[in-house]
């Protein structure tokens, strides 16, 4: 009887790992397939049965893809847009969260509710009229158009306000007694005390800016202003059947984020969990 239970337990344990490994394979297969396809020869790509890995990795595919389209330019554009957007988000988020959590002003509750209410508006709805605004401002085909609409996020403000609220009010009052200005208090006390939360917000924003697709596609015309995700889609249409080059180009877009993820996954996972459970 007891040994039966033991055997059942072992079977359950083995089954658990079989399922988990099968799920892991399903999850990372597209990534593995992307990398392996990017290193194959055209003949290997259409070979049946397909080989999991190329016989000789064709590293030259990356060079060919890199030279076939201005990916260097796309990469620089993506980095500029990502850094500027994230810097803007951090500044506006810290300032607003500080105002909502520590300062008193008439209509504070109303304004805060208004900020929260905007979270219900699907961004997809705003794109049409925002596009119109960008045309009227004559911002089409500029970095401004890709950056400015995204430098404030009600969601991150809400998140950081909750973090700031947890800092004891007594600290603020003590600082007031010492004649420390609000701004100085924010920079010297609030920001360092919540640096992990701020860092999480920064990484989450970097990921979403990096992966942004439709907005930069709409507001840019010229090749010089394109970001990586738009360049990839354009390249896919132009490269036609050169699957190995398309896969190499996809890797160029995906890999930087995967590397950031592998190094900073603690902050990313924590940030998403917190926003998920509190949102």
């Amino acid at each position: 009887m007891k040994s039966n239970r033991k055997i059942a337990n072992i079977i359950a344990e083995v089954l658990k790992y079989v399922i988990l490994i099968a799920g892991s394979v399903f999850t990372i297969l597209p990534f593995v397939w992307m990398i392996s396809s990017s290193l194959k020869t055209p003949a290997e790509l259409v070979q049946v049965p397909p080989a999991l890995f190329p016989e000789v990795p064709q590293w030259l595919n990356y060079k060919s893809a890199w030279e076939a389209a201005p990916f260097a330019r796309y990469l620089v554009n993506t980095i500029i847009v990502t850094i500027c957007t994230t810097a803007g988000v951090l500044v506006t988020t810290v300032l607003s969260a500080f105002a909502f959590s520590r300062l008193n002003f008439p209509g504070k509750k109303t304004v805060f509710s208004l900020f929260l209410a905007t979270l219900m508006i699907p961004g997809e709805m705003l794109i049409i009229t925002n596009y119109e605004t960008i045309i009227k401002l004559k911002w089409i085909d500029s970095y401004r158009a890709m950056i400015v609409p995204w430098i404030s996020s009600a969601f991150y403000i809400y998140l950081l306000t909750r973090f700031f609220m947890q800092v004891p009010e007594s600290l603020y009052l003590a600082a007031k007694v010492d004649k420390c200005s609000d701004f100085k208090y924010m920079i010297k006390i609030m920001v360092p005390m919540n640096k992990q939360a701020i860092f999480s917000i920064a990484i989450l924003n970097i990921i979403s800016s990096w992966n942004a697709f439709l907005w930069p596609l709409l507001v840019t015309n010229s090749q010089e202003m394109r970001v990586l995700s738009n360049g990839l889609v354009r390249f896919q249409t132009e490269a036609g059947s050169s699957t190995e080059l398309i896969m190499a180009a996809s890797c160029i877009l995906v890999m930087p984020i995967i590397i950031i993820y592998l190094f900073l996954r603690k902050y990313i996972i924590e940030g998403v969990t917190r926003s998920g459970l509190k949102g």
Partner: protein
Amino acid sequence: MDKKSFKGYLYLLPSIIIMVCFTLYPLVRAIIMSFLGDYSIINDSYNSIGFENYKALFSDPDFGKSLINTAIYVVCVVPASIILSLLFAVLINSCKKLKALFQTIYFLPYVTSVIAIGIVWRWMFNSNYGLINYVLSIFGVEPIQWLNLPEYAMPALIIFAIWKSMAFNILIFLAGLQTIPEDLYRAARIDSTPRLRVFTRITVPSLAPMIVYSSVIGMIGAFKVYNEVFSLFQGKAGPANSAMTIVYYIYDKFYNSYKYGVAAAGSVVLFLIILALTQIQLKVTGGRKK
């Protein structure tokens, strides 16, 4: 006193400017635009005011199809993703040593570009040389024209979407599992309660709020699906528009056919759907806080 009271607004100013210009104004503007017939954004002209765009919208079979497809998508993706995520989250949580490794792997799809990985899925769905048809052929399944036949377009999209959406759900469930008191499981172990019973009597009820939350978030996300369609079908909405979704329809009317009013009307419909779902979400999360 006055100086102090308005200082708060100084701090809020940058956010308020952005919010007014790029969230509140476009919201109002989109609603107005949806009532203007034949509106053009080039010269602000329109030739009528009324429900013309809404009439055009609801008499367009493509919009009907987009509503049906989005509904199919929601009904297939959300429950399947939730059930699979629940299973994997519970299994990951019961691992001791490899927990962090599995968590890292399963969360990977969340951070990657839908556009890039959609292109990879497009390659895997290739009917002649795709990995998926090859694996199916091992089990004796004839090659499937995933991306070329209308009847397989939605299944292909749904498989891709389930793969993509599980990452977030698993993360939320794993966080939820940490909040279940260990005592409950210890008591169950002492009573030697079977695993399945522990799962249905302790785990699932304890996770109920997260399950509802993930479902609503999943539904909201599903109603907004666009990038997945764009990348899987190379900028189209599948063969014969068979994978047309609401947001794809809106952008198509706006960007390709220049029917701004109809696109705005479609986006108002989308807004109302999301608003209704958000109300459910607020009820659920509000109930949890009490």
